[in-house]
Structure formats: C-alpha cells, structure tokens
C-alpha cells in the first residue's frame, strides 16, 4: 500500500516494480491509471497549466478513506495512489493509481472506483492557469458526480 502526495513527478516504472516486488505471486493482475494535464479545459479554451492545492493531513486521510472503501468492496492485494500538487504544465502527470488483485475484474473496478472518488471526494483544489488572466478554480462536473454516484447504486 502506498498513498502519497508530492510536488515531484513520479515514475510508473519505479512504482510498478516496487508493487510487483510487494505482491510477489499473490495477485494475478495489476490495473494502472495515470491522469495527465490537458492543454484544453472542458469548454475548449487553452490552459497554460494547472495549480493544485491540498490540506496537509486532511487530504491524506481523504485518500486513505477512498482506498479503504475500495478494499472493502473488492479483494485488492495492494493499492498505490500518488497525487501531485503545485504547478503543473500540459502533458504533465497528475495522478497515478495502481490496483493489484487476484483477478482482473476486481482490479479494473477498484481502479475506476478510486479514480472516481478522487475526483469528487479527495481534498484537492485545482486551478486552470491561463496566460494573461487570473485563472479559474475547477469544479467537479456533472459527469464526475454521476460516475461517483453509480458506485452507490450498483449494489456490488
């Protein structure tokens, strides 16, 4: 298990290898998701970067709670969540989720659940920065809330 918040970039290779070492032969699958900074906001306008803010202490607990909930729903061997904060540029990696499980179904579902919850429940704030303007604080979209909500309704 590894849940981290950091300004520095992360390496999928390094996290993957560390995870494989931890799980040994206990898991039959790993699902990986990485989120990147898009060069365009949802409305289509160009952004020069993102600024991500968090609340030290509280943000970590919000991430731990999400991972605990995922582990309560699926038999997950191991979970890695790395979330970056600070100034990011288009193309930069923001978030990494690795989920290891005996079978792929749980790994796919667990990974998607963790991402959907990070979007709506994790304590981060994200600002789209534009050249020559003050920027806009991003709000979760209807789609984000729908995706988070469907996990409450699917009865799994």
């Amino acid at each position: 298990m590894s849940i981290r918040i950091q300004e520095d970039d992360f390496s999928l290779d390094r996290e993957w290898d560390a995870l494989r070492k931890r799980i040994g032969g206990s898991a039959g699958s790993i699902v990986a998701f990485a989120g990147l900074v898009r060069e365009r906001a949802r409305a289509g306008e160009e952004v020069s970067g993102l600024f991500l803010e968090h609340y030290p202490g509280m943000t970590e607990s919000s991430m731990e709670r999400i991972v605990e909930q995922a582990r309560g729903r699926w038999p997950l061997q191991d979970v890695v969540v790395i979330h970056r904060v600070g100034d990011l540029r288009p193309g930069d990696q923001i978030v990494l989720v690795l989920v290891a499980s005996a079978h792929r179904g749980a790994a796919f579902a667990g990974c998607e659940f963790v991402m959907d919850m990070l979007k709506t429940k994790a304590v981060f704030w994200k600002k789209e920065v534009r050249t020559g303007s003050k920027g806009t604080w991003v709000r979760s979209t209807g789609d984000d809330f729908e995706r988070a909500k469907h996990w409450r309704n699917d009865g799994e």
Partner: protein
Amino acid sequence: MKVRAFFFASLREAVETDVLDIDIGDGASLIDLRRCLAARLREDQMAALDAADVRVAVNRRLVHDGEAAVLAAGDEIAFMPPVTGG
C-alpha cells in the same frame, strides 16, 4: 481563547490570506466564529465564506451536524470550497 481559521483555494483568494488567528470567548461555537470573522472581513469576503457549497472542517474533520458545537482553544477551523482531485 485562541483558534486559527484556514482558507483554501478560491476562499484563500477571496479572504486574501491563508490563515487568521482569532481571539474568541471560551465556549464559542462555529456560529460565534462566523460572527467574529464578519467583524474583521469585508462583506464580499464573508459572502464567499457563507456560500452554501463551502464545507467547514474542525481539526481536519468535516463538520456534518451544524455549527453549534463548542470550539476548544487551539482548534484549527478550515473553510473549504468544493474539492476537485484527480
């Protein structure tokens, strides 16, 4: 007693600081704290803190059951706009 109010993201920008030290009477609640803040901040700043989608955390735990609970000396009160991770 002394408590600290923290402001994040858009609220930090609205209030123009990330933290305010507040001297407030013993036994004060979050409702009293808002009154105290209203005396120090501009009306537009206070309106930002009073918005319906602002969540409040005391010592890094979200307040779910209204703002009447009594604060203690040294409490850390955070005003948080809607979150967006991932």
